[in-house]
C-alpha cells in the first residue's frame, strides 16, 4: 500500500536494469534455486533472491559498467572471479557470492577506494544513506593497509554553483555513475571524467555546473552512491525520516516522486523508480522547484473587498464564504443563472475540477464552466473525438521505445516535457529516425547524439498545409496502408479525403509558396514517415494554438490512419499536454458543452444520470466559453465568476480584452496560492493549497491516473476540494464529501471510462490508464487496439476528415512585417507563478525575444538590447536575443514573466472549432526602445494598488 507514509529507506536497487525476455533461466545462487528472465545479470538475480552482492559502480537505472570490481563472484566451471554486474545468468549456473577468496578480493578493492576518501562519516551529510558506507560494511572493511597519507583528492574544491545540489570531489569515488546517468538517462552528456588514471575527476566539461551544459535534472545526484553529488537540502536539513509517494504538479508527463520529509519539513523530492510515466527520472521543476509552496508571497488567509479599487481585508473563512455566497445569490436573483460561471484548473486534481464544474452546473444552474485547457488543448478534444471517437492520446510514454520514425510537430519536448524527451532521445540514439516540423530550430533538431533526419522549418500558421502536402505524397506515391484502412476506417470518408489530398494544389511543390518548406525535403520526410514499420506522432501547443488548431489535429489523425499507425506499441497520435492535469480537466467535464467522459450536455440519457445522482435539473444548453463569458460581461449579461487555480489575465490572449471583461463583473472569486494577476480584479480571494497539501488524482498525457498525496498540512487550513465544498454549502447545497476518495467514487459512478477507478485501487496498483471499464478492467496503455471508440453514429471505425487549409486572418503587412510565435523553456512553467518563486529563476531571469540576425541588423538591434514589440492589439518591451534558431521574418518569445505581458500583443483570433486562442501567430513589428511600454508602467502601478492588503484593524 502506498497510502501510509513509509519510514525512510532508500529505494530498492537491484544493481542492473530489468531484463525483458520470454525465455526463463534457472540457476542457483549460494545454493538457492531461482528462475529469472534471460539477460538478467547475476547481480540482479542475487538481489532478487534477497542476497545483495556488494557493488559500487552498478545501479539499476544504468547499464552495467564493470569498473569497480567489488561485485566479484565465483561461478562453477568459470575461471577466475567474474564481475556479477556484467555477467548474464545462464541455465544451470551455480554462483557463490560469499567465499574467503571473494572476501579478500573485495576488501582489497574497498581499501584502495577508501584510501582516497575522507573518513568523516560522522559529520558527512550522506551518513547512513551512503552506498560506500554500506559496501564497506558488507565487505567487512576494518583497516586500510595503504594508510591515508598517499596522494589524494581530499582538498579538491567543491562546486556549489547549482542552486539545488553541490558537487564535492573529495567524496567522489569516480564510479562514473553520474556521467552515465547524464548520458544514458537524461541524454544531455554534460559530464565527463576529465584526466586519466589517478588524476581522473568528474567534471561538467571544465566549467562550473551552473555554467555547463547541465540542465539540473538531478539524475546524476540520484545515481551518486556517496555524498559527492547531493541535494543541498540534505546538508541543510538532515536525512529524511519518512517518504510519501506523490505526483509532480508541473507538466503533463506526470512524474511520480517520493516526497522525503523530516516531520512536516520537505527535505527533497526524489523521482520514484516505480513511477510508470517517469521510471525514476525527473526534470529540474518537479525535482527541485517546490520551494514556492512556502514562499512568503503565499496567501493563507481569505480576503474580501467591496470594490476592486479598495485594499483587501483579511477575514475568516466563514465571512469570506458568506460574502461570496451572498453576492452570488444576489446576482443570480437579479440576472438569472446565466450571469454566473466558473473556471476550472488543469493544475488542480480531478476531484477538485469535478467539484467546480458540479458547483457551476448543479449550484449556479448554468453550464458556464470552462477550463484553461481551452487555451491549450481544446482542439485536441475536438479533433481526436471527430476522427478516433474519443479525446485522448493513443499511447503510453513507453510506446516511444518501439517507434521507428517519430514525427514531432509543434512541440518542444526537451523544454516542455523533459522526462519524455529523455526517453525519446534514448530511442533516437538506438537508431529511430526523427522528423521535426517547427518554425524554430528546437534542441531536438540537433543536440549531442541526436539529429533530426528532416527539420521542416515551416512558416508559422501553415501546419495544415504541411500535413496535407505530406498526405499528398503518401497517397499519390502509393504509400498508404490499404489493409488498415479497409479493416479499420470508414471507406467513403477515406475516399473523399484521398481525393482531396491528391489534388495538385496540395502537392508540396504547390504549397511551398505558403509553407516555405522546400518540396524536396517535404517529400523525403513524408516517404520516411510512411516507409517505417512504426511511425509515431507527438504534438504540442504549436499545433493547437492556431486558428486551424482543430484542423491540424484532424490532419495528424488522418496521417496516422493513412499509414496504419494506430493500435499497437510504437505508433499513435500523442498530444503532449502542457500542464499536469490538462487531460484530467478535460475528462472531468470542464468544457461548457460536455459532462465528464466527453458526453454532450444535450444528451438526455447522460443528463438524466447526473440529475438523478445530484438531485437537480440540468440545463441542456451548452454554456459560455471563457472568451464568451468576457464578452457577455462587457454587455452586462455575465457578472460573477469563480476561478480556481488559474490566472486568466496572464495566460489568456489579448490582455486588454480579459481585463475589460473582468473589470465589468460584480463578483470575481479567485481561489489560488498567490495574489495572481487576475486577483487584481477580484472581490474575494480564497487561499488555495499546494499539491503537497492535498489528496486526489492527476491524469497525465498518457491518460494515466495517479495519486497526489497529502504530504503536509495545508498552510491555509483546507484542501482545495474542501474550499469548493464550503462555498457550495454556503450557497445552500447539501454536499457532504468526507474525502476526495468519495468524490472519485462519484466520478467513477457517473463516468463510464472511469468506472473501475478508485483511490483504493490506485493505492494498490500505483496507476491506471483510462478507459478502466468492463472491457478494459486493468486500464488501457494503448487505445484503439481492435477498433476505434464507437461514436453516436459510428461503428467504431476511424473517420478521415477533410481538413482544408484556411489561412489565419492574421497577416503580416507593412506595419507588422514579422510573425511572433510563443513557447516555453525548461526551467519555467506556464505563467511562472510557481517557478518564478524558486531558484529556477537563475536560468531564466526574464523573457527574451529571439530574432534572426538579419532582422535584428536591419532594425539596429544587437544582443541584449531592449526592443519594443508591437502588434495591432498592444505593445510591450523586452530584450532581444539574436539567434539563427528562428528563421528570418519570425520572432519568438516565452511568456513566463508578468512584467513582459507577451499576451498584451497576442490577438483574439482563435481556433475555428474551439476558440483556442492563436498564440502561435501574431503579426508584429520590432523596434529599438529605451524603456518599459506605457502599458507595462500602468500595469505595474495597477497591480501594486490592487494588491494592497489593509493592515489588521
Amino acid at each position, binding site marked *: 500500500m502506498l497510502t501510509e507514509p513509509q519510514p525512510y529507506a532508500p529505494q530498492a536497487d537491484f544493481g542492473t536494469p530489468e531484463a525483458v525476455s520470454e525465455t526463463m533461466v534457472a540457476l542457483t545462487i549460494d545454493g538457492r534455486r531461482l528462475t529469472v528472465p534471460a539477460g538478467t545479470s547475476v547481480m540482479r538475480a542475487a538481489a532478487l533472491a534477497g542476497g545483495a552482492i556488494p557493488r559500487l559502480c552498478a545501479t539499476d537505472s544504468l547499464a552495467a559498467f564493470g569498473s569497480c570490481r567489488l561485485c566479484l563472484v565465483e561461478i562453477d566451471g568459470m575461471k577466475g572471479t567474474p564481475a556479477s554486474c556484467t555477467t548474464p545468468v545462464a541455465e544451470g549456473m551455480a554462483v557463490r557470492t560469499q567465499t574467503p577468496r571473494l572476501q579478500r578480493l573485495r576488501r582489497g578493492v574497498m581499501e584502495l577506494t577508501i584510501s582516497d576518501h575522507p573518513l568523516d562519516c560522522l559529520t558527512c551529510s550522506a551518513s547512513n544513506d551512503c552506498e560506500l558506507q554500506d559496501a564497506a560494511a558488507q565487505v567487512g572493511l576494518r583497516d586500510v593497509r595503504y594508510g591515508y597519507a598517499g596522494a589524494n583528492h581530499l582538498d579538491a574544491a567543491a562546486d556549489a554553483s547549482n542552486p539545488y545540489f553541490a558537487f564535492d570531489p573529495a567524496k567522489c569515488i569516480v564510479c562514473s555513475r553520474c556521467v552515465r546517468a547524464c548520458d544514458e538517462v537524461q541524454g544531455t552528456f*554534460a559530464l565527463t571524467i*576529465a584526466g*586519466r588514471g589517478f588524476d581522473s575527476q568528474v567534471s561538467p566539461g571544465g566549467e562550473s555546473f551552473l555554467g555547463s551544459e547541465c540542465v539540473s535534472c538531478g539524475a546524476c545526484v540520484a545515481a551518486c552512491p556517496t555524498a559527492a553529488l547531493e541535494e543541498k537540502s540534505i546538508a541543510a536539513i538532515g536525512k529524511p525520516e519518512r517518504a510519501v509517494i506523490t505526483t509532480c504538479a508541473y507538466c503533463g508527463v506526470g512524474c511520480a516522486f517520493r516526497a522525503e520529509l523530516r516531520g512536516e519539513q520537505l527535505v527533497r523530492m526524489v523521482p520514484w523508480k516505480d513511477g510508470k510515466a517517469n521510471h525514476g527520472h525527473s526534470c529540474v521543476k518537479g525535482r527541485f522547484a517546490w520551494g514556492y509552496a512556502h514562499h512568503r508571497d503565499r496567501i493563507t488567509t481569505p480576503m474580501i473587498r467591496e470594490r476592486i479599487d479598495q485594499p483587501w481585508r483579511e477575514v475568516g473563512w466563514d465571512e469570506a464564504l458568506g460574502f461570496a455566497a451572498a453576492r452570488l445569490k444576489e446576482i443570480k436573483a437579479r440576472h438569472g443563472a446565466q450571469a454566473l460561471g466558473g473556471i476550472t484548473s488543469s493544475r488542480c486534481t480531478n476531484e477538485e475540477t469535478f467539484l467546480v464544474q458540479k458547483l457551476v452546473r448543479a449550484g449556479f444552474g448554468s453550464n458556464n464552466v470552462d477550463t484553461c485547457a481551452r487555451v491549450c488543448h481544446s482542439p485536441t478534444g475536438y479533433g481526436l473525438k471527430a476522427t478516433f471517437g474519443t479525446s485522448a492520446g493513443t499511447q503510453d510514454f513507453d510506446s516511444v521505445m518501439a517507434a521507428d520514425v517519430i514525427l514531432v510537430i509543434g512541440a518542444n519536448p526537451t523544454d516542455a516535457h523533459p522526462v519524455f524527451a529523455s526517453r525519446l532521445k534514448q530511442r533516437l540514439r538506438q537508431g529511430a529516425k526523427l522528423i521535426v516540423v517547427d518554425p524554430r530550430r528546437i534542441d531536438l533538431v540537433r543536440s*549531442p547524439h541526436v539529429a533530426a533526419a528532416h527539420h521542416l522549418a515551416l512558416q508559422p500558421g501553415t501546419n495544415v498545409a504541411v500535413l496535407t502536402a505530406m498526405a499528398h505524397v503518401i497517397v499519390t506515391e502509393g504509400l498508404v496502408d490499404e489493409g488498415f484502412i479497409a479493416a479499420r476506417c470508414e471507406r467513403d470518408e477515406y475516399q473523399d479525403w484521398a481525393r482531396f489530398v491528391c489534388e495538385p494544389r496540395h502537392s508540396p511543390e504547390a504549397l511551398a509558396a505558403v509553407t516555405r518548406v522546400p518540396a524536396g525535403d517535404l517529400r523525403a520526410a513524408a516517404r520516411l514517415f510512411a516507409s517505417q514499420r512504426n511511425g509515431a506522432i507527438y504534438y504540442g501547443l504549436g499545433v493547437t494554438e492556431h486558428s486551424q488548431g482543430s484542423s491540424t489535429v484532424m490532419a495528424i489523425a488522418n496521417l496516422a490512419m493513412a499509414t496504419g499507425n494506430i493500435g499497437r506499441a510504437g505508433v499513435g497520435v500523442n498530444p503532449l499536454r502542457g500542464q499536469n492535469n490538462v487531460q484530467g480537466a478535460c475528462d472531468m467535464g470542464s468544457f461548457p458543452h460536455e459532462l465528464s467522459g466527453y458526453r454532450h450536455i444535450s444528451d438526455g440519457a447522460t443528463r438524466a444520470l447526473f440529475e438523478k445522482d445530484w438531485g437537480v435539473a440540468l440545463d441542456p444548453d451548452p454554456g459560455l466559453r471563457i472568451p464568451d463569458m468576457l464578452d457577455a460581461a462587457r454587455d452586462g449579461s455575465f457578472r460573477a465568476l469563480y476561478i480556481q487555480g488559474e490566472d486568466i489575465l496572464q495566460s489568456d490572449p489579448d490582455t486588454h480584452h480579459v481585463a475589460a471583461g473582468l473589470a465589468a463583473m460584480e463578483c470575481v472569486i479567485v481561489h489560488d496560492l498567490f495574489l495572481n494577476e487576475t486577483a487584481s480584479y477580484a472581490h474575494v480571494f480564497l487561499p488555495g493549497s499546494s499539491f503537497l497539501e492535498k489528496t486526489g488524482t492527476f491524469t497525465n498525457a498518457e491518460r494515466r491516473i495517479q495519486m497526489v498525496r497529502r504530504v503536509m498540512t495545508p498552510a491555509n487550513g483546507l484542501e482545495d476540494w474542501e474550499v469548493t465544498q464550503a462555498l457550495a454549502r454556503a450557497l445552500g447545497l447539501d454536499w457532504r464529501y468526507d474525502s476526495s476518495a468519495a468524490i472519485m467514487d462519484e466520478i467513477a459512478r457517473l463516468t463510464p471510462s472511469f468506472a473501475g477507478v478508485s483511490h483504493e485501487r490506485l493505492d494498490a496498483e500505483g496507476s491506471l490508464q483510462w478507459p478502466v471499464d468492463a472491457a478494459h478492467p486493468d486500464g488501457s496503455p494503448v487505445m484503439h487496439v481492435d477498433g476505434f471508440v464507437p461514436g453516436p453514429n459510428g461503428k467504431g471505425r476511424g473517420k478521415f476528415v477533410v481538413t482544408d487549409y484556411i489561412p489565419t486572418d492574421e497577416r503580416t503587412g507593412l506595419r507588422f512585417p514579422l510573425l511572433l510565435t510563443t513557447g516555453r523553456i525548461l526551467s519555467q512553467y506556464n505563467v511562472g507563478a510557481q517557478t518564478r518563486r524558486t531558484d529556477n529563476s537563475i536560468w531564466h531571469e526574464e523573457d527574451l525575444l529571439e530574432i534572426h540576425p538579419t532582422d535584428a541588423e536591419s532594425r539596429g538591434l544587437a544582443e541584449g538590447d531592449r526592443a519594443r514589440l508591437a502588434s495591432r492589439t498592444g505593445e510591450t518591451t523586452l530584450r532581444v536575443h539574436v539567434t539563427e534558431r528562428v528563421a528570418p521574418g519570425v520572432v519568438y518569445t516565452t511568456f513566463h514573466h508578468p512584467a513582459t505581458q507577451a499576451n498584451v500583443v497576442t490577438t483574439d483570433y482563435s481556433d475555428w472549432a474551439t476558440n483556442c486562442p492563436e498564440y502561435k501567430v501574431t503579426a508584429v513589428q520590432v523596434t529599438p526602445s529605451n524603456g518599459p511600454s506605457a502599458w507595462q508602467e500602468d500595469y505595474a502601478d495597477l497591480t501594486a494598488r490592487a494588491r494592497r492588503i489593509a493592515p489588521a484593524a
Partner: protein
Amino acid sequence: MDDSARLAEIIAAHAGEEGALLPILHDVRAAFGCIARAAQADIAQALNLSRAEVHGVIGFYHDFTETPDPRPLVELCRAEACQARGVEALVAAAERAAGARVRIGKVWCLGLCSVGPNARIGDDVHARLDEARLVALVAGA
C-alpha cells in the same frame, strides 16, 4: 585567414569521417598550439557531441591543452622499462634545470625500452640519458 575561418576549415576537412574528433584535435593543436574553450565548443557543435565530451577527450591525452604553452617541451619517458633503468632518479635534476623556462612532460614508452632512460624533444628522441646529458638537453631546449 582569421582563427575562426581556420578552425572551420580544419573541421570541414574531417567532416563525415568516422572518429573525426582526434584528427581534428591534432590539427587544431598543430595550428593553434592548444585547443581553446571556444574551439572546443565549435568542434562539439560540428560533431554533435557535448562540450563536456570534447573536454573529456582533451583531458585524457596529455598532448592536448586548453591554453597554449609557449615553453619548449622535453618529454621524459616514465614507463616501466625506463623506470627500471633509473629515470626516476633523473627527474629532480631535470626539473631544476628546466625552472620556469622549459616544460618537462611525461610520456609512457617511446619504443626504445632497451636503451632508456629516454626523452623526446619535438621529433627527436634521445636515448641512454644520464643526469648530465639530460640537464644539457633541457638547457639547450
